[in-house]
């Protein structure tokens, strides 16, 4: 019977691989393979960031906006200092990692205080922080002409071009490389002593306690790692996109990342690196293939964004219902 279960896991891995190859071939034929790879590279890390929190027991990290904001701050700082090219990217990531590590620990502590409502609170902390940072973007004393409103000279613009700093500096394969690298690192981490402790804490806190593992500690660790991935992820995304989007843009990004990992087969309680990988591929494949189709139905191109959001919410809702209730008391 157990060989069947091991077989099941191997089957899933093979299945995922096959799907990805099919996707690649279809797109190759259509000539949009590069576009697809680009999207995967850009979005992959944000989807991957959901995995640590699911594994450590916190669930879907709707508060990933915090990490995203840290990354954005790193990017903004790097432009302000006037760095260019790959150096500006590295600096931005560096600052982003430090900030997201600190905020991740604090956020993790907060979540430990509201066990059971992590997703609701996460959503609102995320929204709250986006608004707070919106204030910050306006009042912080940035001076770089690339970022600041030309009229008035104060406050950052909503969209900041990365032409002069790290826009496009990674290229398609650069972002894919970073994504795959982080996948491998996370996978390896999950097989270390600490990673296994985190997994155990997430699966069954009571069991973990009995093993001598303190679940609270590892929840904070999971949230911190997720947050850091969020920071790196947004910088990779922005680099590919060519712009930094401040203010209200990060508001809905968690939902897209959540949907991505759920599409890849993850549930609220269980996720693997493979789920993230498969999920981002499927999600971006759907986007690549359906955008022209949707544009032909709805004349307004901003609708494709709405459709994407609706699909995301639908997927999350479906996952919640399928997961069922949780034993209260």
């Amino acid at each position, binding site marked *: 019977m157990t060989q069947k279960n091991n077989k099941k896991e191997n089957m899933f891995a093979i299945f995922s691989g096959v799907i990805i190859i099919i996707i690649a071939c279809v797109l190759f034929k259509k000539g949009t393979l590069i576009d697809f790879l680009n999207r995967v590279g850009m979005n992959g890390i944000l989807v991957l960031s959901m995995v640590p929190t699911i594994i450590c027991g916190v669930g879907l990290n709707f508060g990933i906006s915090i990490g995203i904001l840290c990354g954005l701050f790193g990017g903004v700082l790097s432009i302000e200092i006037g760095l260019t090219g790959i150096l500006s990217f590295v600096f931005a990531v560096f600052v982003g990692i430090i900030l997201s590590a600190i905020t991740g620990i604090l956020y993790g502590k907060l979540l430990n205080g509201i066990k059971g409502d992590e997703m609701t609170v996460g959503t609102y902390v995320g929204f709250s922080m986006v608004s707070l940072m919106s*204030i910050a973007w306006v*009042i912080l004393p940035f001076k770089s002409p690339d970022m600041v409103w030309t009229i008035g000279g104060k406050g950052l613009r909503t969209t900041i071009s990365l032409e002069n700093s790290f826009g496009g500096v990674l290229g398609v394969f650069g972002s894919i490389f970073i994504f795959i690298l982080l996948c491998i690192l996370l996978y390896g981490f999950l097989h270390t002593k600490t990673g296994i402790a985190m997994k155990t804490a997430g699966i069954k806190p009571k069991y973990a306690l009995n093993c001598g593992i303190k679940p609270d500690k590892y929840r904070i660790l999971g949230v911190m790692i997720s947050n850091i991935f969020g920071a790196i992820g947004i910088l990779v995304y922005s680099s590919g996109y060519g712009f930094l989007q401040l203010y209200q843009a990060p508001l809905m990004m968690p939902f897209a990342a959540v949907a991505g990992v759920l599409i890849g087969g993850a549930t609220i309680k269980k996720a693997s690196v493979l789920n993230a990988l498969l999920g981002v591929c499927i999600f971006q494949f759907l986007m690549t293939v359906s955008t022209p189709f949707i544009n032909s139905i709805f004349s307004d191109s901003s609708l494709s964004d709405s459709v994407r959001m609706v699909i995301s919410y639908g997927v999350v809702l479906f996952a919640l219902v399928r997961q069922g209730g949780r034993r209260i008391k």
Partner: protein
Amino acid sequence: MKTLKNIFKDYTVPCIFILLGIIGFLISGLSFKMVINDLIERLGRNLFIVLSLIIPISAGMGINFALTVGAMAGQLAVIAVVVMNIEGIGGTFAAFLISVPISIIFGLIIGFLMNKTKGREMITGLVAAYFFSGIYQLIILSLPINNPIIGVEGGKGIKSTIDLGIIKYSLDRFPTYIRVLGIKIPLFTLIICGLLCVFIWYIGKTKLGQDIKITGLDIKTAEEKGINVNKVRIIAIVLSTVFAGIGQIISLQNIGTLSTFGSHEQVGMYAAAAILVGGASIKKAKFTNAIVGTLLFYFLFIVTPKAGANIFGDTQIGEFFRVFIAYGVIVVALYINNKKNKSY
């Protein structure tokens, strides 16, 4: 003897907000009379919807973020009324009537979903609200409409803003405004809110109300003792959705314009923040929480933009700050509430 410290401990959240409100008011430099006028108007506009949160909280389902769906039902009813060109208070009441069956259907769906996710009702409601809102928007944008009042030129979709002049202030004004100490009070609207309070009180005295209370306190025991908890929860959500629909119509007749895409979006958020500010918890809520909360929350709402402008020299910051506080409130309230449930 209730010392000041005890009062603060029992009513932490409202106290914080009174403080913030006073500080904000002082910084903003607005005239007290103006603020109170604005406040009373907003009270009339928003109280009904905040009240609709009470029943699901009593049923143990937490904050009904899917309120938005009820608001959408209300909006559809208002659009219908505009098309049928029913004026004045007749129009408002017609909208109420039309919204009820729509709200019931929506409420049944949401209630069904929430029964499948017992223990996670709040996040389910949140996501469901976004999901149905998204579908609503897509339908609004692509429906072929020929009616010039509401339709977009070109025949596809509904206008993004619809003027509600025909029913504007119809409820507030009926039969006339009352002026007390120079403050304009929308008497009839407040009477309707009062009616809702009476209705909630009535339900509380019935078998249904008792079932709701028991289900909310201990769903396991309720089920073991034969209460049909699923039915009770669905009724709670349906009632809440119907009231949300009516509440949204009341709100719209005061604002006078319908923003087809956006009017319903923040409804759930602000109502939730208001009732939590008023001292409700996700397990227990009374009318006093709703009334006090609406007053305190909207007081802050009114003064922050100007206060923000005065501190930072920018009105927009006030907007951001207001949103930050609204969301932050929910987090703080959930945290304080949850401190008791720290076990696995």
